[in-house]
């Protein structure tokens, strides 16, 4: 165990600089009794030094993927390498450089935050002054020094998640894997976690994070992969994926429902092909959106109730996501 305060930002050798942080080849996983495979031939390469997002709807296989990376379950086929080492045969090496933050807080409710950190730190082989300094650093990282000696069962969900995350950092891993760390927490806690993840990344830690919040992936990640039904749909840099899509619709939202006449009035504007109304929303389709915005605003001011928002041209990962995973709406 190294005793430096933070891992070195530069990869330690040229050989390792070339190897991806995580590399999956043909990874499949079928659970006994499961109807469809949870993972189905996933090839994925997570480069070193970035923040990589795994996106996918519920049941896509994100947790399964991460559990295989953490050595908790065995793949049915395919190979998994972390830092160039095979997860099956070189688990010992991997466990020292990998930090895994599970989706559900994995902590002892009747112990205090400090006792939890102390226990898991010792289980990672830390001891003495270094252990103490890591406990302190981790408490500060998630702004919990004031709550350190409270029992975890008294914490709110957000604090439990903060503690859950920071336990995975006790041994200063080089590669950090987080399974939906920001589910069910308030914007403040989420912002804190995002902030800390960016700091850790800047300090050289490679991060793999799963989420189904698109804005989160858009804001936080350099690169993402979208999986669904256990299959990899797409992998790429966030700007590249966004550039592939541009929504041609202009979306108007009103306070209250506009009259049926509005959509018809908007369709009379030259350059507008179609206008659809659904409740308080009206979508206007045009092949020259920039040119029709001004006339649209004139009609709206003449006919409709107060405009709430007008959105145009914002391609979002959400649209990429929905178009790839299918706009199912209903749960599987």
């Amino acid at each position, binding site marked *: 165990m190294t005793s430096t305060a933070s891992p070195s930002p530069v990869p330690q050798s040229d050989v390792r600089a070339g190897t991806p942080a995580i590399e999956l080849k043909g990874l499949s996983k079928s659970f006994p009794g499961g109807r469809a495979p949870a993972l189905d031939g996933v090839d994925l390469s997570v480069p070193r030094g970035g923040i990589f997002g795994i996106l996918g709807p519920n049941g896509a296989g994100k947790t399964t993927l991460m559990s295989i990376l953490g050595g908790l379950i065995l793949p049915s086929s395919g190979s998994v390498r972390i830092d160039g080492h095979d997860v099956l045969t070189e688990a010992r090496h991997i466990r020292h450089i990998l930090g895994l933050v599970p989706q559900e807080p994995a902590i002892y409710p009747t112990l205090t935050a400090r006792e939890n950190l102390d226990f898991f730190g010792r289980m990672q082989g830390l001891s003495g002054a270094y252990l103490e300094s890591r406990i302190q650093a981790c408490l500060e990282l998630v702004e919990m020094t004031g709550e350190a000696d409270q029992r975890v069962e008294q914490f709110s969900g957000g604090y439990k998640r903060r503690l859950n995350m920071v*336990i995975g950092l006790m041994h200063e891993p080089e590669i950090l894997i987080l399974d939906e760390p920001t589910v069910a927490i308030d914007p403040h806690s989420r912002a804190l976690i995002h902030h800390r993840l960016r700091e850790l990344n800047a300090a050289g830690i490679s991060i793999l994070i799963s989420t189904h919040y698109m804005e989160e992936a858009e804001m936080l990640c350099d690169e993402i992969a979208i999986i669904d039904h256990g299959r990899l749909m797409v992998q790429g840099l966030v700007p590249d994926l966004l550039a592939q899509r541009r929504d041609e619709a202009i979306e108007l939202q009103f306070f209250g429902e506009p009259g049926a006449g509005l959509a018809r009035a908007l369709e009379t504007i030259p350059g507008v092909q179609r206008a659809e109304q659904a409740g308080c929303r009206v979508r206007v389709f045009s092949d020259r959106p920039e040119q029709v915005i001004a006339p649209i605003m004139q009609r709206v001011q003449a006919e409709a109730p107060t405009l709430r928002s007008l959105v145009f041209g914002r391609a979002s990962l959400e649209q990429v996501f929905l178009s790839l995973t299918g706009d199912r709406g209903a749960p599987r």
Partner: protein
Amino acid sequence: MMRDLAKLRASVVKEARILLRDRQALILFFTMPVLFVLILSLSLRDVFGDRPGATFPVLVVAEDQAEVGRGIVATFRANPHIRLALAERASEAQARQWLIDGHYRFVVLVPAGATLQAKRRLGEIMAEVPADLRLEQPVAVRVLADPSLRSDYRKVLEGSLDLALHGIEMKLGREQLEQTLRVTQGAHFTGLPDMDQGRVFQPVHGETVTKRGGGPTPTSVQQNAPAWTLLAMFFLTVPLSVAFIKEREQGSLFRLQTMTVPAWVVLGGKAVPYFVINQIQMISVLAVSVHVLPLLGGDPLGLGNAPLALLLMGASASLAAIGFGIAVAVYARTTEQAAGFSSATVMIMGALGGILVPKAVMLPIMQELAVISPLSWGLDGFLDIFVRGGGVDDVLPEALALLAFSAFCHAIAIQRYRRRV
């Protein structure tokens, strides 16, 4: 290895912290067995023993019809608590069978020619024949007793027989002395012979007739103290397995699996605190049985004279219980499953093993079946110490059986814990 030991220590500290914070559970762990022993040792006396005022069927097989036979019958007939039955002739085997079948609780066997033998024996004593030259053996009046006869009542019956024999001895002695004096006119009278040099009758020593024969039966407290200690120890498998599964459900166990923590550290971290609790349970039950029970009017428990054997039994029983609990925990899916399965199994093993009902009063076939219950091994070991005064050598088979059971459970638990799907 040193690093793993440090991890084991941290696991033990963690588990102890969790346990110490669950006050209600701790209170339950320690008061349950103590209360059981107090209540049952005091109340079971009346179930297994006899109520004051009850009458006992006693059989006297008087194959001797002269002074000895008549004297014994007269003594028992004078006792209002006894329903006396007489037989002039019955084989010992027949008498045993009557006892086993429950027709009588206490049987006195007066051998044929007892009076004649007593007189000859007495004559030799009076003539001051040296002990090694006497031809006649002391007369053996045998006693057979039902194991469930309350020990104090049995002592009273044996005592009154003893008294009767003393009386007969005195009477025969006086007659013989008078006769000698009459014949010799006191010419050679040199004083009374020392009667203590050789008894006319063998000391009364009751034999307990159990179905399998032989061996003294435990008193109520000798049975109850180890029985409830063992049951309490094994019942700790419920909180132990529930704690383990909770840890799995809370995900902390999976988290440990992503770290380099060997299985024995995880399981050992659980075992050590529960082992300590088991030992405290045993000590408190024994202490209460020795010191508190007599204050409440019960028989005190004698601890035998092999503290090392006691420690060995306590440790191996606890390890067996913990192994069982860990195996259940690793195999069960839910806390409900673990709690339900382990409590039901412990109750069944307890019933089979002579914990809930003493083996002595079980049907012969059930007594044979008791062998499959680890609790029965534990109980036999403790009874070896308390009842038969056994030492380490005597309890070694039971202790080794318990340790082997523990090793087996731990082995399958570790194997399962390491398994990945």
